[in-house]
């Protein structure tokens, strides 16, 4: 599953990091101000397209999206 961590981390960096902020799998994304809660939408859609899953809106909370590792855990719940 390391591959999933890398893919998600790379997407977050490309999408949201505009300077040379270092990102780890546990960096707080939303509470740390890297991803604004508005932009979670595209992250959710990216995951759904990439892993061919559907994440219910009530599961796509800022807490569940708050780090690469948390996102991986969420995605794994839905990948068949």
């Amino acid at each position, binding site marked *: 599953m390391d591959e999933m961590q890398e893919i998600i981390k790379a997407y977050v960096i490309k999408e949201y990091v*505009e300077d040379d902020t270092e990102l780890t799998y546990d960096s707080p994304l939303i509470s740390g101000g890297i991803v604004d809660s*508005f*932009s979670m*939408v595209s992250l959710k859609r*990216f995951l759904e*397209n990439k892993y061919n899953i559907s994440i219910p809106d009530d599961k796509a909370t800022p807490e569940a999206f708050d780090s690469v590792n948390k996102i991986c855990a969420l995605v794994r719940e839905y990948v068949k």
Partner: protein
Amino acid sequence: MAYTDKTRGIYTEVLTGLKNAGLFKQERYIHSAQAADIEVEFPAGAPLKKVINICANNYLGMSSHPEVVKAAHEGLDTHGYGMSSVRFICGTQDIHRTLEQMVTKFLGTEDTILFPSCMDANAGVFEAVLTKDDVMISDRLVHASIIDGIRLCSAMHDTFKHSDMEHLEEKLQLHNDKRLKCVITDGVFSMDGDTARLDKMVELCEKYEALLFVDDSHSSGFIGKTGRGTHEQYGVMGKIDILTTTFGKGLGGASGGCVSGRKELVEMCRQKARPYLFSNTIAPPVVAGVIKVLEILSASTDRRDKLESNTAFWRKGLIEAGLIIKAGDTPIVPVMLFNAKLAQDVSRDLYDEGIYAIGFFFPVVPQGQARIRTQISAGHEIHHLEKALEAFKKVGKKYEILGKSKQEIIERYGM
């Protein structure tokens, strides 16, 4: 009494926190009409001081223009002080519709609806025209009032990096399955003074069949050859589906705003936009004033031409003095100081020199990008600008920032 000491304590603590963090906003009382030369009481109780104002949105110098003041007086005499009603009950006068038609013609759109303010226009428009089947894709630096409007709308929301057209295109592809897509941007961005690339945005919106929304509050009246706005500058008049603007800046400076664009979308606002349905519209004397402003601006481009040459003079002067400004050609000219305290110190010293300009710092602009935002007006004469330049040079010399690079300033003062 419900307002207990405990309750009061909660608020005093927050307010004290703002003061300690240097984020507490202190108002300055202006005792004169808005103009290049004003008289200010600051701090409260201090004797009045004559200063040159270089931080108003009074781009065209219309705020106290004698013909506009006269027209407002006449409007007051013929149409009264207020309507005591919202538009759809008994709050619509002939002059409200006249103004809507004049704005439509001026901006080159299909129809226009007035709002109490542009804040209200932005707050109400998205909810009125979009549903949960749609998506809004906004530039990451749009104005706060647009963010509020987006929050009030049930459509999905996504963002693109500031003015990054490739990123916007990726987002249009990502959301291509939605019923309607609406791309949202400011025409001129109020903090940096840069313009949205509307030619490219129109092209993308046509390719992906998306609606285009532009807030032209900091452009209407002076950007473009005849001052119609950013869409004129980029050659895309008639192609903006939803255009919002304010009458509180270049177009008079009093108050009021509007949504102008496709006639069905304007009609949707008339039927559904909550700030339109549930709040009184612009008062009659102000409507009469804005009508006069549009007459003046339609008859001659003198004022926007003067603004253009003043802006060129000002930008050149600041660069020659060795200050760092954001590149561009709009009358919003940020002088970059990077450090928040430095911005506040420079602002205070400029005031002592008779120049009124305000420091902006986090959270209004990103961390490490503190600045003094200067705004040029057709109401300025060259002697005003010369005096302001002298003050900037004197204060810049004191802080030893003239001719210094961004790195040097940050090394000395911190981010």
